[in-house]
């Protein structure tokens, strides 16, 4: 009897722990599936009856939503790709040289508030005439993605046994070949982790694009925030748009939770 009670208590506490997450996302879904009348009803209407997809249709009817989605895709993929290109070899080099001081520099990048990069970079991009293109946004996103990739890869390469590469070196391979054909294939799980995390934090980033983006170059978080400013109470489309923005990330988390947990516990990484 006592065991049963403690089991029920335990189950309840688990439920209590996960309910804030579930409730917010469900409420988001509920708002996005109801018409405006139900959304502003008090007491609130919880279950949409009948559920309507009008809000989603309205979001997609604005042709700029697709443009902003495309911008977000380009920015996140480019920032992640460049970060991998530069960061994976760097992580390898730092791990091999045991250059802890270099690793420390990466940590400082993690500490710096994102806004503090923006004044000089904003001025520089204006000066270079790059404002109005996606390039400034991609470049600033490197501030987030590059440290994540390097940090994850350092801890991953440090965990790999060095014997295989040494054997390759003794057989006359160059260090680049040893890296490219021995270490990198072994580190594929680490690269996956780095890739997922840097993509998510780039996708979620708001601060850089809100300052640097022009009308045509907004990313999704900025575009969705602008919807709030211009349509005070139109909760349905707003929720639908918000859900569309965060859905890819939530889906990715559900699919790759193991990798995400591994990467986050490795260094407590998080975007700027």
């Amino acid at each position, binding site marked *: 009897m006592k065991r049963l009670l403690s089991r029920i208590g335990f189950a309840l506490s688990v439920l209590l*722990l996960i309910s804030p997450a579930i409730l917010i996302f469900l409420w988001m879904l509920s708002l996005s599936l109801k018409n405006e009348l139900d959304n502003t*009803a008090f007491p609130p209407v919880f279950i949409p009856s009948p559920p309507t997809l009008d809000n989603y249709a309205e979001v997609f009817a604005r042709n700029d939503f697709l443009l902003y989605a495309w911008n977000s895709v380009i920015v996140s993929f480019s920032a992640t790709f460049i970060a991998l290109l530069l960061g994976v070899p760097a992580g390898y080099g730092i791990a091999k040289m045991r250059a802890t001081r270099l690793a420390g520099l990466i940590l400082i990048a993690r500490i*710096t*508030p994102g806004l*503090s*990069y923006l004044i000089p970079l904003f001025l520089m991009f204006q000066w270079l005439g790059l404002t109005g293109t996606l390039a400034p946004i991609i*470049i600033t996103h490197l501030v987030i993605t590059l440290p994540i990739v390097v940090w994850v890869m350092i801890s991953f390469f440090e965990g790999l046994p060095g014997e295989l590469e040494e054997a390759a070196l003794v057989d006359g391979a160059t260090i680049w070949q040893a890296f490219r054909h021995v270490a990198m294939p072994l580190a594929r799980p680490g690269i996956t982790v780095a890739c997922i995390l840097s993509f998510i934090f780039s996708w979620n980033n708001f601060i850089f694009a809100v300052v640097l983006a022009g009308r045509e170059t907004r990313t999704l978080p900025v575009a*969705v925030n602008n919807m709030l400013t211009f349509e005070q109470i139109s909760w349905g489309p707003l929720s639908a748009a918000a859900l569309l923005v965060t859905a890819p990330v939530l889906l990715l988390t559900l699919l790759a*939770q193991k990798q995400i947990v591994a990467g986050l516990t490795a260094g407590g990484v998080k975007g700027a």
Partner: protein
Amino acid sequence: MSSATALEQAAATTERRRRNYARHYMWFVVPAAVAVLGTILFPWVFTLYVSAFDWRLGSPREFVGFANYTKLFTDERFGFALLRTLYYTALSVVFPLILGLAAALIFNQKFPLRGLARTIFILPMMATPVAVALVWTMMFHPQLGVLNWLLQQVGIPPSMWVYHADSVIPTLVLVEVWHWTPLVMLLLLGGLAALPIDPYEAAKIDGATPLQVFRYITLPLLAPYLVVALIIRTIDALKAFDTIYVITQGGPGSASETINIYLYLQAFAFYNMGYASAVVVVFFALILTLAALLMWTRERVKP
């Protein structure tokens, strides 16, 4: 040539090669280092430089030395922003740590569907902050929001949430807690998994109560991990921007204007580049000091 000398020679070559390689690994780091120099180091130096100018974008800049900094010390609005930031940070560190510890202890047990429950639990941390902030904004609506309806159901008078100066910061902290408790939980869960088993077995033999085990074994052993979580949480809370900007933009009035918001307004609403740069420098110094202080604590807590 005898085989012995050949072997020796080969060994010497390998050794020499290995030493050379250590230097060659530099080239793996150089491209990334250049990118870091351009996007991270250059901004620091340039900010320091700009902070010595009176520079409103569009008008000529004028060298003023430390004038921006002396102005900061007498700037009341900056002072209040600093206090608000510290208040916000203190709350956003304490609650996630307590809740994250409780969650980690629960997720450290074995129970059915644990993997699924953990995945759901970490979803808030991965969700797009802006998107979620918009939903919170709707929930905080004083007349139509679902939160006041919930309060009504349990007999608590409705709150003004983010629409009143007294409740705005605790309300924003609520969002921050929702977002980042999972990260604390993950860090501590990693710590719990790494704890040695022996002390627990000894305690079991000695007949210690669960509370005693927690107080005298788990908590001291977990201390280093708690400090790491504390450091990360402090830094992130100091840097908080997205949710505050989206939900209140520093309002009502300037009741939720933290340093980050103040900085944003100075730089990108008023275009006071020189003054904003001085704010960045002071803010960054504050973060570095706090981080260093916490790192120092960490060294002392290490077993």
